[in-house]
């Protein structure tokens, strides 16, 4: 009995990669931690509707997704940032042609502890805080306390997006960096936990992670504009200043099962799931 089981297991192990490669009835989806929950929810619903087909979703960060797509170990890469030129040229060397498909929008919430009196900031103030030029809460209307900066690790698309669009304000030649004293935490949940327990901390993550234990900061483009809170309506309207597209990347034009899955994600049902997992649909 045991032996038989072992043989079947070995057969599966041998056949597994072959099946994944041929893409006959299983696809591998990998990448952005921000999108893991969304990807899981899609996969569950998809597999429910298409019995016998198998979708495996794993996280690891946008960069991890790209390197897997390039090395051929996944069929779909989820990414919360666009692919870099370096990654494209590397992919081309391996005969892979990454194609970008926008699947959802995400608002990036800047969060503080609910005990923190600060509840609104401008983009300039945010850039100052995260680059370290503003280091005390009293400079932005809070208590006389040192600001504890929390950031995601550099393998996170969220980290890269925040740097490019808040710290460098979209200026591609910008030289601004996160303050060296910024704590780099390995997950959005770790940031949520630290903010919940630390009255002088400030962090950022996709709005899906906001709970009652953190307070989302209302953000204004500049001192004279309106302060906007990160809600789904405000992101859809484009009013909230820190929102970003979420992508999937596939090799060449999507085909077969990959196409079927992406189509599922892009149409009504898939986009409903986007809304349910606290992201913003691309079709209204």
């Amino acid at each position: 009995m045991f032996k038989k089981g072992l043989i079947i297991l070995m057969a599966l192990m041998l056949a597994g990669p072959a099946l994944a490669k041929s893409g006959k009835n299983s696809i591998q989806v990998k990448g952005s931690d921000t999108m893991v929950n969304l990807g899981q929810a899609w996969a569950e619903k998809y597999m429910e509707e298409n019995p016998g087909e198998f979708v495996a979703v794993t996280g690891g960060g946008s960069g991890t997704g790209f390197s897997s797509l390039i090395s051929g170990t996944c069929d779909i890469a989820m990414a919360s940032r666009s692919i870099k030129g370096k990654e494209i040229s590397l992919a081309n060397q391996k005969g892979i042609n990454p194609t970008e498909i926008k699947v959802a929008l995400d608002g990036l919430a800047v969060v503080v502890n609910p005990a923190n009196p600060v509840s609104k900031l401008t983009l300039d103030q945010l850039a100052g805080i995260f680059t370290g030029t503003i280091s005390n809460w009293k400079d932005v209307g809070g208590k006389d306390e040192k600001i504890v900066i929390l950031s995601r690790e550099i393998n996170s698309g969220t980290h890269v997006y925040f740097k490019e669009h808040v710290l460098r304000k979209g200026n591609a030649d910008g030289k601004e960096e996160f303050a060296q004293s910024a704590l780099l935490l390995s997950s959005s949940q770790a940031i949520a936990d630290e903010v919940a327990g630390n009255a002088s901390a400030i962090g950022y993550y996709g709005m899906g992670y906001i709970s009652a234990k953190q307070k989302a900061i209302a953000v204004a483009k500049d001192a004279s504009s309106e302060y906007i809170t990160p809600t789904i309506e405000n992101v859809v309207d484009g009013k909230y200043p820190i929102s970003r597209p979420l992508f999937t990347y596939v090799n060449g034009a999507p085909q077969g099962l990959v196409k079927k899955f992406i189509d599922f994600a892009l149409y009504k049902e898939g986009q409903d799931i986007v809304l349910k997992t606290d992201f913003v649909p691309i079709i209204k």
Partner: protein
Amino acid sequence: MRKLKEFIIEKLILICGLASIFFVVLIFLFLLKEGLAVFSTVSPFKFLFGKNWYPISDPPQLGILPLILGSLLVTLGAAIISIPIGVGCAVYIAEVAPANLKEILKAGIELLAAIPSVVLGFIGMVTLVPFVKTFFHLPTGLTALSGSIMLAFMAMPTIVSIAEDALYSVPKTYKEGAFALGATHWQTIHRVMLPAASRGIVAAIMLGIGRVIGETMAVMMITGNAAVMPNSIFAPVRTLTATIAAEMGEAVVGSEHYFALFAIGIVLFIISFAINVTADLFLHKRQ
């Protein structure tokens, strides 16, 4: 027939013995091949003594001094905590404890060694980190100190069990001689037993430290990972190991960042190799 069997077994064992050396050499060659490539873009001096670690910027800034100092600071803190407690524990187990308590203590130490580091890290994150924050009135509890305390727990089993072995292997006649001269128990321990076992104890400490410097998961979870030049044990630090673990997934294969992470691997390899060789020297001089 018998001789043939003997011969085959002998050679097989020889192969097993050589395999470990073979693998170490292979690993080291691979590390060198991947790691040294980084020095075509950044000079070794700038790499080792640069103060800025911004690997994904354009152009990347690849200075690992904050990471080296971070690793050393956490290790030093862990050593300061674990050496006195570990050696004290070993002395108690080997010399003082009654037989039945001895067994319980040894089992406890073994159990401590069996806790996976990610579990220790998790426990540290939810208990130690908030405690350090409130106790020392710090802006955050994710500090080098938290890492040192947690790593001290990891180094202790190694230190205790090897130091205890060293104390056991001191010839009984030394102890009897000391007692015969009228020395008290404590005098015997610190004037005779400890000096006689000192080489073994130093080896135990070195191996314990070796474990600490290579530890990854727990430090990544509780030291805050800020790549800043550490100026106090109450500040967050980023260690060499945590940097590799956190960034390897992102690094584009063949990029400067990727090579730099391998070069960090070489630095780590050299540090732990040096520690192990020192431990070995002490152990072998003893015989």
